[in-house]
């Protein structure tokens, strides 16, 4: 092929159009490829690891201080009752503890939900080590089923000393079931 630009300008224009069009399509695919890419980076860095139990390195109980824990429960567009059995609990950092939440599906149909935790202050997330939690998995409920579910946790003793109160708030969202 020895068509020079001067011999066949329309062909070279068309060739470039196709090449640039391929770039456009590839970049559109790249945008969607960012989705699994983002997941892989989150896994590789260990950031946003919210559905696995935490590992606890230091289990020395620090009896010189207590931390007040307040528990909150919300539903997002769900006809469920969702409440903590204890509103407030005091623990020593390093001491394993358990709280129980109760959920009732008040509708006539089976439903599945996912609880998402949120912490106040935000930095407390790093120190609230959950060893077992109903928020690690989707929870399925039959019609009018009521269940109590635990959260087993330890407050990391490295929690900064000026943090005396931590709020743990869960919100249940409806999701497709397994």
């Amino acid at each position, binding site marked *: 092929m020895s068509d020079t*630009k001067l011999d066949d*300008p329309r062909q*070279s*224009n068309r060739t*470039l*159009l196709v090449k*640039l*069009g391929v*770039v*456009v*399509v590839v*970049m*559109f695919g*790249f*945008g*969607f490829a*960012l*989705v699994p890419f*983002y997941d892989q980076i*989150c896994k590789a*860095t260990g*950031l*946003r690891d919210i559905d696995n139990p935490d590992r606890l390195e230091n289990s020395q109980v620090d009896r010189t201080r207590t931390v007040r824990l307040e528990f909150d429960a919300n539903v*997002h567009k769900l006809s469920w009752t969702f409440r903590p059995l204890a509103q407030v609990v005091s623990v020593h950092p390093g001491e394993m503890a358990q709280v129980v939440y109760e959920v009732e599906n008040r509708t006539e149909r089976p439903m599945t*939900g*996912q609880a*998402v935790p949120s912490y106040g202050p*935000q930095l407390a997330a790093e120190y609230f080590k959950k060893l077992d939690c109903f928020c690690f998995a989707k929870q399925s409920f039959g019609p009018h089923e009521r269940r109590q579910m635990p959260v087993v946790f330890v407050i990391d003793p490295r929690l900064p000393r000026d943090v005396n109160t931590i709020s743990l708030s869960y919100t249940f*969202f*409806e*999701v*497709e079931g397994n």
Partner: protein
Amino acid sequence: MSSIPHDHAAGHHVDHDHAHHPSGTMRWITTTNHKDIGTLYLWFSFIMFLAGGVMALAIRAELFQPGLQLVEPEFFNQLNTVHGLVMIFGAIMPAAVGFANWQVPLMIGAPDMAFARMNNWSFWLLPFAAVLLLSSFVVPGGAASAGWTLYPPLSVQTGMGMDLTIFAVHIMGASSIMGSINIITTILNMRAPGMTMMKMPLFVWTWLITAYLLIAVMPVLAGAVTMLLTDRHFGTSFFNAAGGGDPVMFQHIFWFFGHPEVYIMILPSFGIVSTIIPAFARKPLFGYASMVYATASIAILSFLVWAHHMFTVGMPAAGQVFFMYVTMLIAVPTAVKVFNWVATMWKGSMTFETPMLFAIGFIFMFTVGGFTGLVLALVPVDIVLHDTYYVVAHFHYVLVAGSLFAFFGGIYYWLPKWCGRMYDETLGEWHFWTSFVFFNITFFPMHFLGLAGMPRRVPDYATQFTDWNEVASIGAFGFGLSQLIFLYAVLKAIRSGPPAPAKPWEGSDTLEWTLPSPAPYHTFENPPQVS
């Protein structure tokens, strides 16, 4: 034959003998002529600029005093959002394409754009998208109100105004992509013999690089808003934590587009300034090669800095530090450009007609905006200033006193070539000085407001912020009124300006000035010889 004066900048110079050439409305609907299409883009962008400007004045009117006097908060958020979308996608970007359409073929000695019919479609998609976007104000729920950045979860929850916005963004993106393919092909394939790449005018270089940025990142925006659409209506959970997604991921995808986007908005203006300064300093551009390399460096680096819009999302410090360093690095090639413009003026023989006033104003105020950008690049500072009025000040300095001022300069510079008539220099200078003064009155105090802690996107504010808000609102109305001087100046020039010579600017040296004024409908059908 005489030029037929009418509302469009392209004169009717009878060098063509099309018996079948349509006239009137059909001419404008079916045109494949780059000059006509450039004119269409520029008028469209000006109309959208006025529409976005009215929204800005409504915002500033509400913010004149604390308390809620004029609008409901939900409507205020709609004004904020649509003001941003209209100015970015309806004013700045189409204006830049209008300049490209008029000037790129003329400056490289080409007869027209590579794909003349696709060029027509690229333009006519835009008014359709604008209608979709603006009509979202009157649908149930009103217009999109999540900010122009459309962050979820809010953007996934709002009413159908958001869907109209998403469709408008898709359409405008398609228009930009097609236009960019056209521009790249034209520049790479259709230069006159003898015009090597390193002999192209810098405006052509900046548009070549801008067009590559556009085809790289507009598809990513299309993907992001498509994900919003499917999250809203088709049961996906890209950004829904409950479904395994993540709202922060939207920010990453959006800003991967969004940061190159701001360079897309400024690079053509760099090219315009690089054209005007040498012409009015009567001295060649200093450091042509380094200007080309600096522009390319800015474009490449722009892909690596997106998360500086996200320093407060909970990113680990290592990430923040990386993005901070690379963001600061972009200041280096940018500074090269500023130094080269100043060096061009050094020992030049300068006059200060309106285009030069806007170009010099650009250099000063884009530099101010660039400095505040450097301030915001510093992570510990940004933690405090993020989402405050300091950010609003920064981007209005670079986009309005930067990009828009360069466009004004370009219009005054090239209007004689486009319509064959000179504008009134007194009017042009009035436009410049009133715009310059009122722009600074409006936006300089916003630095103080941001440093004092006033958040952005709020319809009401704590009373300690009142004084500077009053000043800014007065400035805003002044700036808005100043643009009417521009409209009057342009219309007066087109209708009754004195005939312009082929080369009204003594120091200009690019190919378009070898043509008569107004430029004939068809030019360079035989390519010129470039030495």
